[in-house]
């Protein structure tokens, strides 16, 4: 379970992340709340060396990626270092409420070691 909630249109099948009253693709008010599978591809990624709030600063910086989910929407995630555009990732919302993208397959290793 990714914990990433999407809205998905019953009329045209389009999915999106930012909450709306109607489908941005076709205008239909008929949509459901669905949980994303979590699979996706890195659309872009940066390592931020200077956070906008001091309490968010992490020594050595922190990664932020835009991930194109398999369901369609592009969403912003935290990442560890080392991801590149085009990499397959798995996204899951962590305890701090932030979605985190890790290289696909590595979340299984984490589960195995934990």
């Amino acid at each position, binding site marked *: 379970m990714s914990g990433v909630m999407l809205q998905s249109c019953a009329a045209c099948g389009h999915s999106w*992340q*930012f909450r709306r009253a109607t489908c941005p693709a076709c205008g239909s008010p008929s949509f459901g709340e669905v949980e994303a599978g979590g699979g996706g591809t890195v*659309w*872009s*990624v*940066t*390592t*931020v*060396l*200077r*956070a*906008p*709030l*001091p309490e*968010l600063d992490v020594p050595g*910086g*922190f990664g*932020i*990626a*835009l991930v194109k989910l398999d369901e369609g*929407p*592009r*969403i*912003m*995630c*935290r990442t560890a270092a080392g991801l590149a*555009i*085009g990499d397959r990732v798995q996204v899951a919302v962590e305890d701090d*409420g*932030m979605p985190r993208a890790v290289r696909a397959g590595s979340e299984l290793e984490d589960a195995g070691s934990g």
Partner: protein
Amino acid sequence: MAYLTGVAVTAFGKHPGRGPVDLMEEAALSALADAGLPREAVDGLVSGYATTYPHLMMGTVMAERLAIRPRHAHQAQVGGATGAVGIILARHLIAAGACRHVLVVGGENRLTGQSRDDAVKTLAGVGHPIHEVPLGASIPAYYALVAARYLHETGASEADLAELAVLMRRHAAAHPGAQLAKPITVADVMASKPIATPLKFLDCCPISDGAAAVIVSAEPMGAAAIRLAGWGEAHTHQHVSEMPDDLGLGAKLAAAQAFETAGRSPADMRLLGLYDSFTPTLAIFIEALGYAQLGQAGAAARDGRFSRDGALPLNLHGGLMSYGHPGVAGFLAHVVEMVRQMRGEAGERQVADAPLAYCHADGGVFSSHAGFVLERTA
């Protein structure tokens, strides 16, 4: 018909002890003097906002400070595109017969009026309050994501982007009002400290104090008539998460309208004033407008295309990256430089001849676009 009849810009940098209203007042009075207009002739006023003085009614604040009673006044907020949207709106007010002389003014003490942390935090707020800002994203981070994507799609290098920073610095050296005039090289840009990869310190514009003003009138005032010949806007998204896959789409849509309403083509332009908050902003605009092949903006700059004696001189005052960026006044400074160049008043920065020019700005993260064609008609 609408004409740019009065322009003024303060020096950008530090103006300690002076607030946004003080700085905007100086620019507005200078623009009136430039137009040769008495202040009571101003019957329309579009003011910018100031992050150091958040106010619900800055338009009225400025009207009171200038002791004028315009028939229309309001505060516009479209981020970095505010000045461009304000000028286009002034044209619409004039075309509608509502006003004859519209003052568009912006300025603030963004550098000395707050801490750098506060400035960065305020600007980060253009991001999504639930899905982006809490992740620690900042304005440089949003633009870094676009920059990384741009480099991936085009094959351009970070050194190519650096060429644009070097060019802006070289142009700024010829303007006494510029905040940053010390020459830099591509190696300096590459060696500057990383902010959000691939953006380094010298890929980013500075934070500045300063103000600028432009008066848009129903008829020309001085010897040179600079007509606002065409205009276009596009508002494709707010948040980078929902930015179109085509990074240049907003710029293309706004520019297409501007050239169509002007009855001109991009190839007719002889001077460019493009928003340059970060080196990739400038590269994406240059390429979306067709002034370089995809991924080739930096190479074209290196080859001299955008230099004062090149085919398409660009931001001859040094742009946001080196003249400086105090918010709304940042892009208005581009417009001031364009008008001075088109009038032939730019002194040692003067280009040979520039009867047609294109100006373009974005607000947010390539979110709001406004572009216009200027044409010298007399």
